[in-house]
């Protein structure tokens, strides 16, 4: 073997080992066959269509959130103009992002402008025709997209928190859609769509309740403290002792009133801010709607010194002490860091979804159908692969072995790459694998036919192989690059299944260039090196 060939062989062996490692030796090196199998199943993640599970696509009505911001801007504007005694005709919201103010007193134009500048920095004012000295305020585009993206982030977070309650393995919640206003919820395995929808819908799950006793370290302890019988109108809720809102952290139990005093629907806003009295500490400021304030005022008056449980999705998030009478706005103080206060504010805001949602799509694949698809798809693929290989062996004889090896290696690399990239194998993905096999066969056939032509033209073995590869090289590159280019476009612009197809195709084609040119060539060179010059090349 020449030196060059040795390096090539070493490189190929390295790739093969890396592939087998990726497929069978992760996450831990196997010591038994069962573990090899487990590692393989761990590496090749199956899509919901093969594995069974539920997928929901829902759309967040982001414009609602924008409209809500505009509503508040109208309120702010009305209040501030009144306070500064600036006379205007009419303040009217004409669309989600536009507010029309008519007949601003001419001598107060600049005062009006400064109110807009100071209190509504996200709004741009322009003279409006036909409204006296009227102005059209428009919400800036940057602000609109900021509101929308924040709405989406909060919705995803809220939905994730609610789905987490179901305790399913590996649920996936992600933004999707060309307008970026949709959320994809994937629940593998036994997820039940009706149940999932019920938890997602459970809007306004934020509740403020009175703490009757607690915290206890366990439910049993809480029960034992009350003689095994809960006082009427109370219940035990789990929660975290700190300010953290992650489920699964150390748990504490509170005895709280069954009826909430205030729910998420009553909340107008919640923001984090530094505590003015205790430097270094943070607090959460919240505003209540008018109706809720009328209830909350007398309630807090009666319960000063007691604890108020902030309950989110049936977990106690924190239990601050009521310091005084609270009517329409209040603060939650505690030993919060800035981070914790912001988290809590977000939890309060996100308690209710920031905008309503609409279901667009739902699909549930039963586990038996997924099993059928895998079995039938794999059986058909294997049968056709074997048929193709047998044919190649008959048609190209010894060189056929070369083609078969290249094909097998191509598949191994493809699978290993899927495992390394944590890509998901779906049914359309299998279609991509089949096209890859087709093109793999084609590359080999192109090269072999070219070698045959050169042999017919009377070339010696070595130079026929040389010319065969060289001439077929351009063709193979052209066909592969064309397909990869189109697959990249499909990946960029396509939706779920189309993308699954594109990703396997891209990986498969790159692997194919390697196997059908580099590996196949190395095998030929090795074979030629062992042949006498006069021997006939079996092709």
């Amino acid at each position, binding site marked *: 073997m020449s030196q060059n060939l040795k390096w090539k062989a070493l490189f190929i062996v390295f790739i093969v080992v890396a592939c087998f490692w990726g497929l069978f030796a992760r996450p831990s090196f196997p010591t038994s066959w069962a573990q090899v199998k487990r590692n393989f199943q761990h590496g090749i993640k199956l899509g919901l269509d093969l594995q069974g599970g539920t997928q929901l696509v829902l759309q967040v009505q982001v414009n609602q959130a924008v409209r809500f911001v505009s509503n508040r801007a109208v309120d702010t504007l009305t209040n501030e103009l009144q306070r500064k005694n600036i006379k205007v005709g009419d303040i009217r919201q004409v669309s989600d992002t536009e507010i029309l103010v008519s007949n601003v007193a001419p001598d107060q134009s600049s005062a009006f402008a400064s109110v807009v500048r100071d209190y509504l920095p996200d709004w741009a004012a322009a003279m409006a025709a036909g409204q006296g000295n009227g102005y059209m305020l428009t919400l800036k585009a940057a602000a609109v997209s900021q509101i929308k993206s924040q709405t989406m982030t909060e919705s995803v977070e809220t939905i994730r928190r609610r789905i987490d309650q179901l305790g399913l393995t590996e649920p996936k919640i992600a933004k999707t859609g060309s307008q970026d206003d949709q959320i994809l919820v994937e629940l593998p395995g036994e997820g039940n769509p009706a149940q999932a929808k019920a938890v997602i819908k459970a809007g306004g799950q934020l509740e403020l309740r009175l703490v009757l006793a607690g915290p206890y370290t366990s439910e049993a302890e809480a029960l034992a403290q009350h003689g095994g019988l809960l006082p009427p109108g109370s219940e035990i809720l789990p929660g975290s002792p700190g300010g953290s809102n992650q489920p699964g952290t150390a748990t504490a139990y509170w005895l709280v009133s069954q009826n909430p005093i205030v729910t998420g629907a009553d909340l107008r806003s919640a923001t984090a801010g530094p505590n003015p009295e205790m430097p270094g500490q943070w607090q959460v400021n919240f505003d209540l709607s008018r109706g809720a304030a009328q209830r909350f005022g007398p309630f807090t008056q009666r319960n000063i010194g007691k604890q108020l449980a902030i309950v989110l999705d049936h977990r106690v998030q924190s239990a601050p002490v009521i310091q005084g009478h609270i009517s329409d706005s209040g603060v939650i103080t505690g030993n919060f860091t800035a981070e914790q206060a912001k988290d809590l504010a977000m939890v309060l805001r996100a308690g209710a979804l920031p905008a309503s949602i609409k279901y*667009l799509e739902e699909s549930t694949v039963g586990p038996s159908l997924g099993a059928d698809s895998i079995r039938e798809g794999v059986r*058909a693929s294997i049968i056709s692969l074997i048929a193709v290989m047998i044919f190649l062996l008959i048609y190209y004889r010894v060189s056929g072995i070369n083609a078969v090896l290249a094909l097998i290696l191509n598949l191994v690399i493809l699978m290993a790459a899927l495992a390394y990239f944590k890509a998901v194998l779906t049914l359309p993905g299998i279609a991509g694998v089949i096209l890859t096999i087709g093109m793999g066969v084609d590359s080999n056939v192109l090269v072999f036919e070219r070698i045959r032509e050169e042999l017919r033209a009377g070339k010696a073995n070595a130079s026929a192989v040389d010319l065969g590869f060289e001439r077929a090289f351009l063709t193979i590159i052209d066909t592969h690059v064309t397909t990869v280019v189109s697959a990249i476009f499909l990946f960029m612009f396509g939706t779920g299944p189309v993308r699954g*197809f594109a990703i396997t195709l891209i990986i498969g084609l790159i692997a194919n260039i390697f196997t059908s040119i580099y590996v196949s060539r190395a095998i030929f060179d090795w074979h030629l090196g062992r042949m006498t010059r006069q021997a006939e090349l079996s092709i």
Partner: protein
Amino acid sequence: MEFFKNPNINWMGKIKYFVTLSVVLLLIGLGAYLHDGGLLYGIDFRGGTLIYVRFANTPPIAKIRSALAQEGLGDSTIQSVYDPSNPASKNDVMIGLKETGSVTTRLDAGRAAIMDALSKTFSGPAGKRDFNAATPSELAAYLTRQDPLHLGPVVGDKYKQLAAALTHYRDSDSGGLVHTLADLKTVPGVTPAVVASLQQGFYPGSYVIRDVRIVGPQVGKQLRRQAILATLYALAGMLIYVAFRFEWVYGAAAVIAVFHDVLITLGFFCLFHFEISLTVIAALLTLVGYSMNDTIVIFDRVRENLRLMRREPFPEIVNRSINQTLSRTILTSGLTFLAVLVLFLLGGRVLHPFAFAMVVGVVVGTYSSFGIAAPIVIAWNKYRGLPSSRGAGSGSGGRPPKARAADRRLATAGRR
């Protein structure tokens, strides 16, 4: 072994037959299209509700229909989906609902109604649960409570594993439906006590929901738009690459040929009443890639021969190129055809439309490379007034310098 030794067929002399064949195929497709009043969209693109149910016995269609009518779903379609390659699917039924509700009605109202109708029609003994609808965690919880193996308080994962084995047997080995619970004794780890315990709490339901798909009306439109856009972008990408590597007319010819293949395949879908689903889109994309591959192989050879055979008329060069690549074309297409045929016959219900598109596509895609793409380039050269002696490029015997430079770059890269 070899199929062809130096074939010498005058392909480009048969252009008028090719054109006739393509026109006839396109017209057949168009006729089927007009006859059906458009493409038969699958649920992905149409919107609606589709529930795939497997029954243990012959499904009582009339009974289901009347139960559905009671729920106000008289217009639902009930269809047998027996797939001869899978005997377990003998009693499989697809219940479909058109998306009639406006945006405000609940998306899953139809599903809930169908489920209600089914569970009313096939209710089991009171107090027992349907084993065929039970999830692994339900089974595990039940077994842990009953403890038929008398493991005592140190149960561990034993029942969880047992529940997983039971559902695996049900879903993978018996197609989702267990006919009698006594069958479960073949599952490793299951003792008669376990079976007896299961029989106390469960009954083998006579149907199982295998697949539910609900698509809102506006989603169908959006998915359709996105699929078309993605395909058009992909085609544009190919056009640009081929135009850059060859000449723009080659790119255009290849894309037109691929377009032709897609249209004819869609025509066949109309003709045989196959639905267009997202999987079919993947198949169409596969065939686009495949057909493009075929066309480029021939164009590559044409480009090479243009340099070698400077005096030959262009159609002759094309002929020679097709003949030289013929055995490769037959071989690759034959093998791919073989592969997708197996898929079509054995691949199961879900892959069926995909495989159908590929079976048609492989044949049409191979044909279009020499029957459509090559003649377009010839026709273009003729139209440009070249005395059909020199092909791509001009009489001075060259292709644009840029393309030649690109060739050289790749050729040197290939030599190594």
